[in-house]
């Protein structure tokens, strides 16, 4: 930057041409600070630091009249930043590099801005930064900061247009709050009712494979544990027949894995459709109807409760009784499906039996012996399952999100030494053990539980709810679900994962580090109260705002009966209501601030207007008597009334003692005046 002071005074004059007033700049800086939090965790750290540095520099430069002037320097800096972004991310495509670029451009703009126009441009760019913040994160804390930033931007604009009006620094905030308070009903109206048209235009953010979410067709140790912290939405499910769905834990079937490689399991490479002949379907009233809205995950899994049988269009039922989409799911998809709690398959054909008993060569003798010992003890399948679960329950197995690294051949290590695992470890090892004991078994990966949303009446299932369990073949029963994880952590099935983990923190089981600090802090009443308010707001944000997406809105609108006429008329209706609301605001503000006119004066002015319409215009400086003279001259026919009205007016307005003539009479005279002219 060319920051050195010039020698000649003329040049100094030329250099000090910055005209952004200080107060609006302060508000703008505060707003920009609030757009930082989403950048901090999600972008390369230097971007946020550069942004902060630019802000700080601006406040140093502004009073001295410095700014970034040289176009070449600007270009060099922009290119440098572009290069730095490319080096940090390895690409310029995608959301993070894009937001970084915008943040860097805003920083440079701040350094060079010096006119009122540029100030307003930065304000608009800051709003785009708010938008980008939401693309990076939608946590409540982030959202809170971004909405504060938005409000501060409004305050900056208000302060800017106030100019040099006197008042304390917070006065524009009052105006901002007034605007926001009046805007609140409009926001609620728009948010609830304004149709959200899905354009189908997908914001292609970077490499599509990076956007794949959820599990894959391979269950490797530690694979599901990585999803345990993802709050991303997998799908939403409604039960149209009973609001809260069936009793008991909700096992959402995703994919069935047949191929065993010890600790690692795989699904079929290309699933084959199964025929309907050997299946018995439950009566329709016993089936559970679900309406599922799936979030795009880039793969072909479709989810349904337990054992789906009513196949939605564009999908097939794959071997293992799970839904498989014909095309990858790249945009939100809504479908209805029927599920049965009871097993559907009557018998296991030879091919499936072979598949369900396949074993890898790498099984160590110790593991085979363990399985064989159960089988020799009691060859009845149910008894073998029971003793296997008994083994998990009693041998000191622990349930943990971070059990450490396992290889696919580490079955022995897991079963006899470390004995710590997440659901996929238990499911994989259990199914392998069952096969070793001669029982056909397979692994199912899907979701367990879900968070019930009261407002929308649906279950929200997140990626963190990903779960793996087993199914074993019981000859007279069919495929039976066995969840070995419940043997280790019995509460897991009843809760979704996050609340399960949270409950463990509360009970002190994981009270280490942060948890310990948390428990210590909770002893302070005020902190506790603030925390509970924050939690409540957070929950409201998650359920009421983040939960209210286009699909939920659709349900909501249907329940109000507003979807019949289509989105366009609805949008028009909403706009009309808003228009009426704005007119009400305008009328109210007008009533509060309009000029108070004396009634007598107003009546006289009306009389003057009436005369003006016939061509006798009163000069602003003409007295009532002079005007009367002129009016009688030009309107001899009405002279009597003109004289009378003027006399009454003078008597009412200028009489030393209270007038004996009532104002109403004067009003009547003036109202009657039109009649004779």
């Amino acid at each position, binding site marked *: 930057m060319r920051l050195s002071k010039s020698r000649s005074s003329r040049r100094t004059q030329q250099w000090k041409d910055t005209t952004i007033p200080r107060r609006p700049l302060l508000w703008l800086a505060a707003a920009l600070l609030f757009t930082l939090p989403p950048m901090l965790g999600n972008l390369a750290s230097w971007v946020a630091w550069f942004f902060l540095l630019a802000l700080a520099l601006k406040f140093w430069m502004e009073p001295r009249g410095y700014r970034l002037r040289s176009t070449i320097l600007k270009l060099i800096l922009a290119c440098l930043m572009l290069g730095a972004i490319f080096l940090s991310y390895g690409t310029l495509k995608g959301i993070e590099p894009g937001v970084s670029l915008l943040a860097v451009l805003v920083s440079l703009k701040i350094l060079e801005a010096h006119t009122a126009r540029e100030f307003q441009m930065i304000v*608009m760019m800051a709003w785009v930064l*708010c938008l980008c913040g*939401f693309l990076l994160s939608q946590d409540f804390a982030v959202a809170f900061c971004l909405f504060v930033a938005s409000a501060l931007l409004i305050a900056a604009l*208000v302060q800017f247009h106030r100019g040099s009006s006197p008042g304390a620094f917070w006065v524009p905030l009052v105006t901002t709050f007034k605007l926001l308070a009046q*805007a609140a009903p409009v926001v609620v109206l728009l948010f609830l009712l304004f149709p959200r048209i899905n354009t189908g235009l997908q914001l292609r953010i970077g490499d599509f494979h990076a956007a794949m979410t959820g599990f894959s067709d391979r269950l490797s140790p530690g694979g599901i544990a990585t999803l345990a912290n993802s709050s991303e939405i997998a799908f939403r499910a409604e039960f149209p027949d009973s609001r809260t769905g069936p009793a008991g834990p909700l096992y959402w079937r995703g994919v069935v894995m047949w191929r065993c490689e010890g600790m690692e399991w795989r699904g079929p490479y290309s699933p084959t459709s199964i025929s309907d002949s050997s299946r018995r379907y439950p009566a329709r009233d016993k089936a559970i109807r679900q309406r599922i809205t799936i979030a795009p995950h880039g793969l072909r899994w479709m989810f349904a409760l337990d054992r789906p049988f009513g196949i939605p269009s564009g999908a097939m039922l794959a071997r293992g009784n799970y839904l498989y989409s014909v095309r990858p799911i790249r945009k939100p998809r809504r479908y209805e499906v029927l599920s049965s709690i009871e097993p559907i398959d009557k018998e296991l054909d030879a091919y499936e039996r072979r598949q369900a008993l396949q074993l890898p060569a790498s099984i160590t003798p110790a593991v085979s012996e363990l399985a064989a010992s159960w089988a020799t003890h009691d060859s009845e399948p149910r008894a073998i399952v029971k003793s296997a679960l008994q083994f998990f329950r009693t041998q000191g197995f622990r349930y943990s999100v971070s059990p450490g690294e396992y290889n696919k051949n580490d079955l022995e290590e897991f079963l006899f030494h470390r004995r710590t695992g997440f659901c996929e470890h238990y499911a994989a090892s259990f199914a392998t053990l069952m096969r070793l004991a001669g029982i056909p078994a397979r692994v199912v990966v899907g979701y367990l539980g879900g968070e019930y949303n009261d407002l929308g009446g649906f279950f929200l299932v997140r990626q963190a709810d990903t779960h793996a369990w087993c199914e074993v073949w019981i000859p007279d029963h069919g495929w039976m679900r066995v969840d070995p994880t419940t043997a280790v952590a019995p509460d897991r099935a009843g809760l979704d994962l996050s609340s399960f983990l949270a409950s463990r923190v509360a009970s002190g089981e994981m009270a280490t580090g942060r948890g310990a600090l948390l428990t210590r802090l909770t002893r302070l009443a005020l902190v506790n109260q603030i925390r509970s308010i924050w939690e409540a707001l957070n929950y409201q944000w998650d359920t009421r705002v983040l939960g209210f997406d286009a699909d939920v809105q659709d349900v909501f609108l249907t329940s109000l009966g507003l979807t019949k006429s289509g989105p366009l008329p609805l949008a028009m209706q909403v706009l009309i209501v808003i228009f009426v609301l704005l007119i009400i*605001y305008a009328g109210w503000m007008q009533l*509060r601030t309009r000029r108070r006119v004396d009634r007598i004066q107003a009546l006289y002015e009306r009389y003057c207007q009436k005369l003006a319409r016939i061509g006798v215009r009163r000069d602003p400086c003409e007295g009532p008597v002079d005007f009367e003279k002129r009016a009688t001259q030009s309107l001899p026919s009405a002279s009597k009334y003109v004289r009378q009205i003027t006399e009454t007016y003078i008597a009412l307005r200028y009489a030393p003692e209270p007038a004996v003539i009532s104002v109403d009479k004067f009003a009547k005279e003036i109202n009657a005046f039109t009649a004779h002219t």
Partner: protein
Amino acid sequence: MKTGKFALVYPTGNFAALLFVLAAMWYAASSQNSPAIYLLLFGLTAVFLVSIPHTLLNLADVTIATESAKPAFAGQEVSLPVAIMNCSRATRRGIQLVLPTRGGERKHVDFIAAGKAARVTLRFPAKQRGEHRIGTLRLTSIYPLGFVRVLKKFAPSQTYLVYPKPSGDPRLPMHRARLPHSRPQTELGEGDDFAGVRAYVPGESQRHIDWRAVARGQPLITKQFAAEAEGSVHLDFSALRFHDAEQRLSQLAMWVIEAERARRPYSLRLPNTDIAPAVGEAHFHRCMRALSLFQGEEGPRP
């Protein structure tokens, strides 16, 4: 005055930027199906919508009153004092006054308290001699957010005068006194004898202004030198040799100024106008008015 009653609202340049931001938000929200971005979008939209009545009412019960502008010489500046009156019971902010037909200088008034008035002086170049209408005055405001502008027009019926630009020979015509009672006159030179001071006449040379007195805070006064000529000057339009009427008027204006400065009685004869010899400010302006309203040989404009 019918104008000034209704206010007009129209978007400003910033509105285009806002539309762009809203479109970006809408695109992101609909493609991501993100309620959070929808909330941001609707929030910004709602604040914008709510700001429209605020802007609209920012000029409610605000009127203007123009005062009479002092006559100016062509080529100089006309100053038009305007009072912006806030008759409402609320403070009005961010008001701008423009006279678009005369240069379009924008005058900002940051705030006017309830029931108060603000005075601004609009300055614009006086181009042609004659009597001109002020033209339409525009009051605008973009407070509080600057996305829409409210406009109120006022068309005052007042006029202002522009005197002809004085130019030509500054020496008064000596030998043209035809009146029988006129006595021979001495030349009014730039002599050395200080002959006292008098008020400065607009348009005359600034050479003799007593700047020291101005520095002391006194009004503009002119120092007079040389002996005052006794005889009256007769200024006759038709006696001038210039071909161009404007040039003649300029010369006459010059002489009127010089004669007024020298305190010599002067008369003015234009086709259809005859002003008897006199001296003084009223006479000066009468002559100047006649010169500025001169409408060719057929006579002055009624």
